[in-house]
């Protein structure tokens, strides 16, 4: 048994890429070791990473592959020899296994006697195997963005590779990649130690720790957390804003992290917190500090890639940078106020939304009209919408795109508009709607807080999605540059979150109307984008109900098949359906409905006549009559429950059809030969059953597990 160390030393790897590639390298090396008999099948390989290295350390691998012997069966003896002399078949076999004919064995098995051979294979040394295969593993890493660095461009990697360590215990594995020969020397932290000899594979972690490098990524993150705590504890009651995303970044920007606390002038706190936090977090990678009530304090924490700051130079430098940044923000804030949002509306004509969909002025006009229409529907369902505020918010929501502050901090679009609206004495409703209208940014993000914000957000997104589909620019595969999927998910989440009776089909039909007669409409691709859009929305609804809300896929299919335009309704239906699916009656019904559907399909395929309405006079069997009576009776009750939105009761009612339906299938033959009228009438009965009882869900979609 031996320990295997493999380190790829590199110039600084982008922080965002490190975690994934560390994992991939670990998986690949484990697979390589297993595939070549050097490692037990279940073992995993510990990995390490810093900005300057990716490492695997596999303990207890075999120093050599095990020797193997394999029995190979050749031609039957009858074929192999003719008159006691070997035939060409025997010669070919001997050649294949590399053994002289005279030394081949005879193997008997139930099928007869065969020529055979035992091939002994000596296991290769691990060093040999690895030396041959490791370069391929380096080349196989698939980085999001690669570069060339050597003349002739022989290889690509994320950044230039500068050293490689490849050791089996203490023995160097001869590996060469990108002109670099592997050795036993790694490199320590840039500022403290240059080259460090790793004499023995297992000494890797400790040796590098002495060289000021913590190679264990989680350990660095923990160290950062502790240092953040320690630095914050110097101020009673204060705490740092937990931010896993930022922690991941700084842990991968440092090899030897430490933390310092800095401060800024209290007067900057008069700027909106969102601006301050964006500058600190997104631009400077600082952690914000707040008091016990969550209020921002004039302090920040920054993670260093060095031991500390005894002379305070680093703190001083960072404070200086932050001051300049905040001064800029304040400068932009003040100068932006000179032109209030309402005077920026005209200027939106000069800001392109999308090259074929026109400018933001046109977009906000469309959004305004689309939002107004949706508000009208909502009022019809007795929701209180502030029309005036919605109208105003729609006009103003994109105006912050021309502000200096948004040009400087694009991630604050919408938020800045909301803050400015408030500052410029627009109503709170208007300000909130603008502030929230890009929300939700993801499925984890919250939906707009107010009804007006929700409607504005939906209209804005629907306008983009509708326009892009009309241009034929729907997302394909992994390509979705305008994040239309994300935006559609946002619409779905917002509708569900606010329980809005907005009809999705109507929403996009309304959106098409707003494009009518525009320059953009002239560029719309002719064709079936409406079908594509419908399929796209169907996918998003499925995704929401299944992956976000956790409903079983078959139930989701069942309710969406019965109608996908009203999401709130679909949600109520799927909830009710989930409540009854496990009942015996329902399982039986879904089986019967599948049968009904099949029969009707066969009838269609055979071009059989289906009666328009089942006629009582044409009945022959009791079971037939009883089913028709039951269908008529039950469907009336179902309809009443359904209209009241009481889907649970409706479904319970539907389940009462089971005895009649079972008995119908037991006793009645639908596809009767010879009596076309009777057949047509029975088909009509089934058709009615299907039509009346499929308004909540298409039960035939429900999958019954075989128990």
């Amino acid at each position, binding site marked *: 048994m031996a320990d295997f160390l493999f380190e790829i030393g590199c110039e600084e790897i982008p922080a965002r890429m490190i975690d994934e590639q560390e994992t991939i390298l670990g998986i690949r090396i484990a697979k390589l070791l297993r595939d070549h008999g050097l490692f037990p099948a279940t073992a995993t390989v510990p990995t390490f990473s810093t900005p300057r290295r990716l490492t695997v350390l596999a303990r207890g691998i075999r120093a050599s592959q095990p020797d193997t012997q394999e029995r190979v069966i050749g031609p039957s003896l009858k074929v192999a020899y003719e008159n006691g002399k070997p035939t060409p078949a025997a010669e070919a076999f001997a050649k294949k296994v590399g053994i002289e004919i005279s030394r081949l064995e005879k193997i008997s098995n139930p099928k007869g006697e065969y020529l055979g051979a035992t091939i002994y294979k000596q296991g290769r040394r691990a060093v040999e195997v690895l030396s041959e295969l490791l370069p391929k593993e380096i080349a196989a890493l698939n980085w999001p963005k690669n570069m*060339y660095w050597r003349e002739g461009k022989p290889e690509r990697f994320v950044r230039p590779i500068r050293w490689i360590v490849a050791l089996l215990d203490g023995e160097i594995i001869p590996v060469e990649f990108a002109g670099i020969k592997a050795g036993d020397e790694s490199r320590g932290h840039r500022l403290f130690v240059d080259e460090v000899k790793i004499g023995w594979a297992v000494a890797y972690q400790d040796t590098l720790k002495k060289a000021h490098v913590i190679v264990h990524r989680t350990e660095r993150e923990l160290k950062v957390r502790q240092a953040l705590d320690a630095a914050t504890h110097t101020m009673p009651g204060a705490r740092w804003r937990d931010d896993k995303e930022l922690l991941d970044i700084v842990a991968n920007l440092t090899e030897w992290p430490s933390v310092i606390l800095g401060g800024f002038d209290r007067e900057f706190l008069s700027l909106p917190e969102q601006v301050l936090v964006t500058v600190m977090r997104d631009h400077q990678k600082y952690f914000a500090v707040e008091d016990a009530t969550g209020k921002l304090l004039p302090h920040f924490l920054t993670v260093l890639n060095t031991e500390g700051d005894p002379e305070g130079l680093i703190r001083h430098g960072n404070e200086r940078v932050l001051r300049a940044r905040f001064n800029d923000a304040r400068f932009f804030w003040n100068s932006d106020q000179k032109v209030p949002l309402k005077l920026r509306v005209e200027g939106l004509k000069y800001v392109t939304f999308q090259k074929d969909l026109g400018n933001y002025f046109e977009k906000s006009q469309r959004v305004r009209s689309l939002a107004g229409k949706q508000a009208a529907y909502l009022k019809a369902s007795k929701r209180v919408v502030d029309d005036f505020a919605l109208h105003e918010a729609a006009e103003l929501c994109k105006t912050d795109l021309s502000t200096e502050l948004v040009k400087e901090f694009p991630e604050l679009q919408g938020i800045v508009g909301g803050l400015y609206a408030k500052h410029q004495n627009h109503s709170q409703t208007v300000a909130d709607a603008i502030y929230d209208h890009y929300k939700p940014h993801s499925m984890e993000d919250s939906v707009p807080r107010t009804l007006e914000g929700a409607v504005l957000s939906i209209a804005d997104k629907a306008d983009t999605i509708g326009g892009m589909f009309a241009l034929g620019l729907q997302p394909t595969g992994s390509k979705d540059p305008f994040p239309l999927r994300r935006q559609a998910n946002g619409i779905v989440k917002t509708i569900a979150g606010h329980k809005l009776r907005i009809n999705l089909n109507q929403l996009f039909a309304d959106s098409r109307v707003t494009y009518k007669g525009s320059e953009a409409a002239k560029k719309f691709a002719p064709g079936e984008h409406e079908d594509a859009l419908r399929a796209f929305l169907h996918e998003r609804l499925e995704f929401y109900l299944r992956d976000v809300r956790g409903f079983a896929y078959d139930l989701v299919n069942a309710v969406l098949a019965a109608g996908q335009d009203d999401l709130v309704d679909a949600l109520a239906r799927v909830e009710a359906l989930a409540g009854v699916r496990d009942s015996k009656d329902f399982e039986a019904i879904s089986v019967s409905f599948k049968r009904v559907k099949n029969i009707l399909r066969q009838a269609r395929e055979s071009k059989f006549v289906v009666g328009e309405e089942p006629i009582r006079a044409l009945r022959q069997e009791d079971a037939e009559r009883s089913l028709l009576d039951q269908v008529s009776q039950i469907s009336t009750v179902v309809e009443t429950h359904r209209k009241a939105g009481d889907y649970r009761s409706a479904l319970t009612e539907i389940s009462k059809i089971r005895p009649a339906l079972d008995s119908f299938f037991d006793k009645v033959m639908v596809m009767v030969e010879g009596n076309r009228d009777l057949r047509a009438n029975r088909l009509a009965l089934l058709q009615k059953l299907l039509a009346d009882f499929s308004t909540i869900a298409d039960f035939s979609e429900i999958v019954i597990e075989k128990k």
Partner: protein
Amino acid sequence: MKSSLTFQELILRLQKFWAERGCVLQQPYDVEVGAGTMAPETFLRVLGPKPYKVAYVQPSRRPADGRYGENPNRLYKHSQLQVILKPPPENVQELYLQSLTAIGIDLGKHDIKFEEDNWEAPTLGAWGIGWQVMLNGLEITQFTYFQQCGGVDLDPISAELTYGLERIAAFLQDADSIYDIIWTQDPQTGKTTTYGDVRLEEELQFSVYNFEAADVEKIRKHLELYEAECWSLISIPLRYVPKPESVMIYWDRFVTKDHQGHRINIPSGSCILNDLKPGKELTRHAALDLRAKTVKFSTAPDLSNPSETIPLYAGPLVFKTQPIGVLYAEKLVNARAPLPLPALDLCLKCSHLFNILDARGAISVTERVGVIARIRNLAVGLAKAYLAQQAEEASTPASVGTPA
């Protein structure tokens, strides 16, 4: 901070450092540029196989960044110290860190990080992979491994180090405003001259010019003239004879290469472009069949003097079939060789004029995309012409006139 470097000492130290490491010390390029990358010492030198090492200060003008001298951190014109190492030595990062030591930064007492930042300049058809170098939270240098320039894949690649001189000086001197940076101190009298003393008035006047005073129509005209002149230096000369409603264009036989480098003969020929009136700009694309392949001409000549036969440039001849290749005359029958070096000056003029129009708010977003593409075409065109010329020189030992 005591005994920190003055602005000019900072420059001198960095220049000395890189001169000692074999760099040619160049002087700032004397045409307006937005960044040191655009100067020929970078833009052209990174092309082709010849190794090169150079360092120079490049005043870089960005009209839209002007703040009338009111913002302590932003300038219309800032200075970059640009270093090109072609090919990059293996210890290029270490060399860079040593250069920081050379300007008095004790690395042991500061926090240095190399954070991902990939540089891209669409108007130059250029991009690279690299970092922004952060010193105590301040971006002091852009460190780029150039991968492509002028639309051409580079081999060998170059390392480009771009030091932000004002930022570094402000950091060294702990100045809160760029204008407070000490430019120099008179060793005799001890009198200091600040950055503001030297440059504030310039910032103010150029802000007024770029945002308010620049004559949009004239600048547009200048841009077109420079663009036309640029094309005329790098493309196949065609001539036209004006007729009342149309223009006859004809060209002499010439030899050129297609995008795969195959030599092809283009016989002399002619075509007619319709809908032309003297004085009207020719902006529409006319397609003509050239040796059974469709070729697109994109032109904008000055037709104000219809009686004279002037060279009409064709822009790049672009095969409509994919991949798009660009044809350039290898040997011109009428003897005027391509002149990529002067062409670059003209291209830079265009780029700067575009920036002024942009700062002036005179470019609509739709137009913007178009103008950027036009300038990119120039940059790509002249880069290819430059490369072709280099290749020709390499293959003809007796050649004279290495581009300076």
